[in-house]
């Protein structure tokens, strides 16, 4: 890094040194002080229009907008001085003039910045006796509804579409207090990343149709996760209500997805709540599959595998831990592994380098290939007539069905039992991404953790767990009880993952040995 000139200043009595050119607002964040703001967002240009971030700077005659004022050596900033508080109280009163107090029926309630700052710094009662402005709700296309009356005109959505999505759809129409966010003629919020405006909206003006009236913000449990929809590996928060995933939102990671998540990814969570699940280990008794305990099922599977080669059809949606354990099963039996990955159109977010909805629609293609699974559109073409086919939560296409029928013996480790694999000898129930802890390796080689968001149905276990136990029955040392232990074993065995552990990964992830940082990859 080039020499960065540091500027020293005092914010609320705290000394802080930040690079020259930093705004007071960002410097205050570094000092642990959150200056209230609406229009400012670190990924967007400075608009300076909400005037909420006004602070008092000694020796300046006027209050300074913290987002648009650069730090200066020796500056003394007062965020909570009487003048600054009075000015922000004024802004809040103005913002609430036309904002309906319909918090009880507003989806944003509980995670609304207008609500938060009004409770913190606003007046207890408004003084306005005038009627409020009224405008009807408008459908902005895509997943977005615009509740005009709640809008505070911060223009984050307009700037996101212009500067980040680079698809000019939104504008500020009209002037004065008649102003509203408008759509350009013939345009809709159909950009593949457009729904980010819902997250960016600090109030309940832009709402997700998908999440409309589904839950109150305070009823949700939030779990850090990774979007399983493509190889990008966007960091997410899975939000559950009563053990049901109801929303997936982006989690900030400046190395991967910054603050964003594509529409396809964020809406692709319903399958996590599927109820047609395999809930207990099953073994074949005649023409019936019978529920048994884990030990009996694993013993049966080990018997079928004994002396045979395993052909493992492993889903690229499985975790590093699971794929690695399956690769050990392939190795132990001298078999083979293969997978197919679904494809879709690629959709980059132009304003962020190296961020796109990737064509390969699975989160862990990189690890699957790394652990020796062959990527193929017809993964079963190499299936030997004497092989034991192990289907590890892999989707079966119509073309696969015939090959599966042909296989002498089939073992399914999966969340569901595919129709084409009804003749399986053993079925081991598996957890999905929301029900287990694990890691994925994204296309740039970033290894990232996801945590368990809901409880597993019945007796389902992560694939690494059941596969590890199966290996134990086959005489391997492979008994792991925690995902972190499985990952530690993986890190010890695979040089690309050397030195990593759940502790070192944290929630931002780490690059595989030798993988280039995405910023560098984008530059080259």
């Amino acid at each position, binding site marked *: 890094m080039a020499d960065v000139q540091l500027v020293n200043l005092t914010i609320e009595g705290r000394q802080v040194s930040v690079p020259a050119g930093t705004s007071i607002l960002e410097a205050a964040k570094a000092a642990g002080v959150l200056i209230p703001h609406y229009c400012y967002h670190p990924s967007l240009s400075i608009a*300076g*229009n909400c005037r909420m971030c006004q602070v008092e700077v000694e020796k300046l005659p006027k209050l300074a907008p913290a987002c648009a004022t650069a730090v200066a050596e020796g500056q003394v900033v007062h965020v909570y001085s009487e003048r600054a508080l009075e000015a922000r109280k004024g802004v809040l009163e*103005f913002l609430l*003039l036309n904002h309906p107090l319909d918090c009880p029926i507003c989806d944003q309630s509980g995670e609304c910045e207008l609500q938060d700052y009004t409770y913190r710094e606003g007046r207890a009662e408004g003084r306005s006796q005038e009627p409020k402005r009224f405008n009807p709700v408008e459908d902005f296309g895509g997943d977005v509804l615009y509740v005009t009356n709640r809008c505070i*005109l911060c223009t984050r959505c307009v700037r996101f579409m212009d500067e980040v999505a680079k698809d000019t759809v939104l504008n*500020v129409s009209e002037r*004065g*207090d*008649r102003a509203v966010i408008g759509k350009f003629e013939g345009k809709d919020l159909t950009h593949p990343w457009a729904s980010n405006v819902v997250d960016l909206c600090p109030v309940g003006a832009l709402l997700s149709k998908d999440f409309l009236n589904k839950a109150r913000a305070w009823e949700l449990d939030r779990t850090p996760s990774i979007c399983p929809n493509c190889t990008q590996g966007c960091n997410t928060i899975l939000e559950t209500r009563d053990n049901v995933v109801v929303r997936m939102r982006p989690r900030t990671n400046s190395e991967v997805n910054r603050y964003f998540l594509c529409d396809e990814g964020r809406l692709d969570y319903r399958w996590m709540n599927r109820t047609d699940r395999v809930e207990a280990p099953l073994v074949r008794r005649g023409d019936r599959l019978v529920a048994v305990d884990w030990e009996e099922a694993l013993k049966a599977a080990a018997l079928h595998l004994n002396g045979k080669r395993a052909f493992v059809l492993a889903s690229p949606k499985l975790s590093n831990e699971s794929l690695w354990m399956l690769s050990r099963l392939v190795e132990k039996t001298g078999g083979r592994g293969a997978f197919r990955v679904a494809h879709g159109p690629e959709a980059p977010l132009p304003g962020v380098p190296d961020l796109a909805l990737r064509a390969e629609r699975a989160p862990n293609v990189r690890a699957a290939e790394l652990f020796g699974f062959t990527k193929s559109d017809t993964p079963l073409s190499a299936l030997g007539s004497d092989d034991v086919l192990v289907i590890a939560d892999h989707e079966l296409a119509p073309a696969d069905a015939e090959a599966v029928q042909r296989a002498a013996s089939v073992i399914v480790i999966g969340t569901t039992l595919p129709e084409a694999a009804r003749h399986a000898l053993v079925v081991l129930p598996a957890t999905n991404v929301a029900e287990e802890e694990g890691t994925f390796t994204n296309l740039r080689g970033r290894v990232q953790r996801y945590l368990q968001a809901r409880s597993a149905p019945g007796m389902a276990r992560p694939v690494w767990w059941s596969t590890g136990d199966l290996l134990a029955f086959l005489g391997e040392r492979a008994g792991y009880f925690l995902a972190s232990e499985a990952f530690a074993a993986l890190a010890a065995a695979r040089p690309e993952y050397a030195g990593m552990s759940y502790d070192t990964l944290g929630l931002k992830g780490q690059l595989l040995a030798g993988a280039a940082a995405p910023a560098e990859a984008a530059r080259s």
Partner: protein
Amino acid sequence: MGYPHTSHPKETPVLSQYFGDPGARSLDGWKQRGGYRALEKALGMSPADIVNEVKESGLRGRGGAGFPTGVKWSFMKPGDGKPHYLCVNADESEPGTFKDREIMRWTPHALIEGAAIGAYAIGAETCYIYIRGEFTEPLRVMNAAVKEAYAAGVIGPNAMGTGKRIDVHVHKGAGAYICGEETALMNSLEGKRGNPRIKPPFPAVAGLFGKPTTINNVETLAAVPHILNRGAAWYKGMSRGNPKSTGTKLFSVCGNVAKPGNYEVEMGFPFKEFLYELCGGPLPGRRFKAIIPGGSSVPIQTVEEAEATVMDYEGFIAQGTMLGSGGVIVFDDSQCMVKHIARLARFYAHESCAQCTQCREGTAWTTRILERIERGHGTMADLDTLLELADQMTGKTICVLSDSCAAPIVSGIKKFRSEFEAHITGKRCPMGATAAA
């Protein structure tokens, strides 16, 4: 000068000398009246010498802020390798102001000449004249004059045969008050919504198309040829004692006054003499009550304050208001101040660009309160609320539109509180039918 266009003997017609003279509109006519000699002279001088001459003359911006023009020009660093631009602010949207309109209608070449000199002085090859959308006649006259000047080689790739390039483009606005704010004007010129920009960066650093830009008012630029022709000392001499305010100033007078119109006087002229002699005083049987001396954005004066004022930048400030754009709006004793202040607030509420919260919501809220008081439904608490809102709307926004809305409200309530109270206690407008005018 009222209408017809004859100057009062106490006026000092410099810019307004040829108002009402159709012969001055054409290039030939303008040359016969001494036009384009200053441009010829300027193109033979170094830009720095021109800037110094203008600095020396004491010329200050006539658009409202009164910033010294020479100093503004000196911010444009020569040889920085970037294109420079000159913008001429002919948006003249300040209510009560109509001086630039007359300059462009009658003496379009005075503006072209001044703009060409200004462009040369700041190292710009391109000059944009941004004309208010409602100004159809000035637009037509300016377009014709620019065409004529190009055809004669006065401006263009080889201005006056000197090999220097000075292009002048006339751009018609769409009729928004805010586009008279310099950075909003630049956004509008760039084809964007006319929203004021955050400063810094100032236009001299990053203005039009992100390049160093100077923006001057029509009247300011029109004065420049006279300064070059007759010298800084002559210009400086037109001042009645205050060396900080020099030259002549056009005042547009409207409202309840015997002879409305444009009047050009020396800086420091007594306002009382101006109102009663030049403008002919109040209408028969009436008395002056209140004056807004510098366009609708400045604080209102009582007639006593106005009579004690000398007409220059400092003189108006000494009497609690500002010279502003020189749009003098006169109210006599038949007028309801509450109604007029409410009308002004309504104007600002209509014209707010909707960026800053205080302005977008504040202008509309104050308008509603004022109109409610006018209708007789106000309370005494409303007056305190209005003053508090005005304070919230002052000095806290990107541009000064909300300050401009607040200024007449604060001065109006302070100076004419009894009228507000009469509306509140009497539950109707005490002026009755006469206020309906």
